[in-house]
């Protein structure tokens, strides 16, 4: 019987659901605490439980990426792979991968200096959005409404870490009904989708920020766009964020450590069970 090693730093609803899904399916899933392990980069003196395949569920992006990279260098398969995760983790690399594949996404610029960032806004117009290239749950994503507030927000980023001075600036997309779509791709299938509706006094739709979720049918258009986005990044499991405008759909972000604690109860789709099956399929 094949063993799945689930590497995590926290056991949230999402990870607990994976444990339960494995139990239900009679699959051996080993819980691995990312804080307990060490890995030898130059050899094989590692302290990590053996498994046939590892499922990467670290909340810490960089720790997760390095663990994945080292395990792969030792010939172990990891879901998601480093190739996929390292692109998804970085919003700019994701944008470039989408562009290369011809997938529509919001118009995006990058600058490395406050003045140059302000020049972008002359071209893009106000309002626009600034996002950290790394980050999640809508944190530190800010609307740039006019030159004064843009300057203040950009300058505030100067006192933060180096990565916050990569000014990733995007057009503001007027979302239909103040909502966006999150679709779930496992391998070559779109297994579920939800609408995320922004909470009161909030334009960001993240459920972590009080956004509400509603059922979203997987239409042929959503399916096609989600699979194209997934193919642009490579074989893996993804949460795809799609923005609907009045006349088109744009892929906004692609997430590589998807959370589904809102989606599973709402849709009844067994995403954790499907993730377990997906891992087993790879090492069959």
């Amino acid at each position, binding site marked *: 019987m094949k063993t799945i090693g689930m590497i995590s*730093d926290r056991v949230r609803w999402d990870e607990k659901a994976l444990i339960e899904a494995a139990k239900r399916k009679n699959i051996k899933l080993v819980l691995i605490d990312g804080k307990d392990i060490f890995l030898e980069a130059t050899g094989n003196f590692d302290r990590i439980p053996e498994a046939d395949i590892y499922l990467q569920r670290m909340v810490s*992006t960089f*720790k997760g990426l390095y663990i994945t990279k080292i395990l792969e260098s030792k010939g172990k398969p990891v879901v998601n792979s480093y190739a996929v995760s390292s692109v998804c983790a970085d919003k700019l690399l994701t944008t470039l991968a989408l562009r290369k594949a011809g997938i529509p996404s919001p118009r995006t610029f990058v600058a490395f200096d406050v003045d140059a960032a302000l020049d972008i806004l002359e071209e893009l117009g106000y309002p626009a959005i600034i996002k950290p290239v790394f980050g999640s749950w809508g944190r530190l994503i800010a609307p740039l409404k006019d030159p004064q507030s843009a300057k203040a927000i950009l300058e505030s980023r100067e006192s933060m870490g180096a990565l916050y001075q990569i000014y990733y600036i995007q057009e503001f997309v007027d979302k239909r009904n103040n909502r966006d779509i999150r679709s779930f791709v496992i391998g070559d299938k779109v297994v579920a989708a939800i609408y995320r509706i922004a909470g009161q006094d909030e334009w960001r739709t993240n459920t972590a920020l009080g956004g509400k979720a509603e059922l979203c049918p997987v239409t042929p258009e959503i399916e096609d766009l989600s699979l194209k986005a997934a193919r642009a990044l490579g074989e893996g499991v993804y949460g795809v964020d799609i923005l609907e405008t009045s006349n088109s759909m744009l892929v906004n972000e692609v997430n590589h450590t998807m959370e589904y604690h809102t989606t599973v109860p709402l849709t009844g789709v067994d995403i954790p069970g499907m993730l377990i099956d997906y891992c087993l399929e790879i090492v069959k």
Partner: protein
Amino acid sequence: MVKGKCPECGANLDLEDPVVREIVECPDCGAELEVVSVEKNKVSLKAAEIEGEDWGE
């Protein structure tokens, strides 16, 4: 059900099949708690670590 006590407000918690490192919310004070250890009928809990700079994706 396994019993635990919230280290923040002292409320009694009943947890189903708790797992070490599991994140649970105290139903009384809303604190985010982490399961530190699980014994037969008792779990010990601590306040969960606050969000790290690179958490998420």
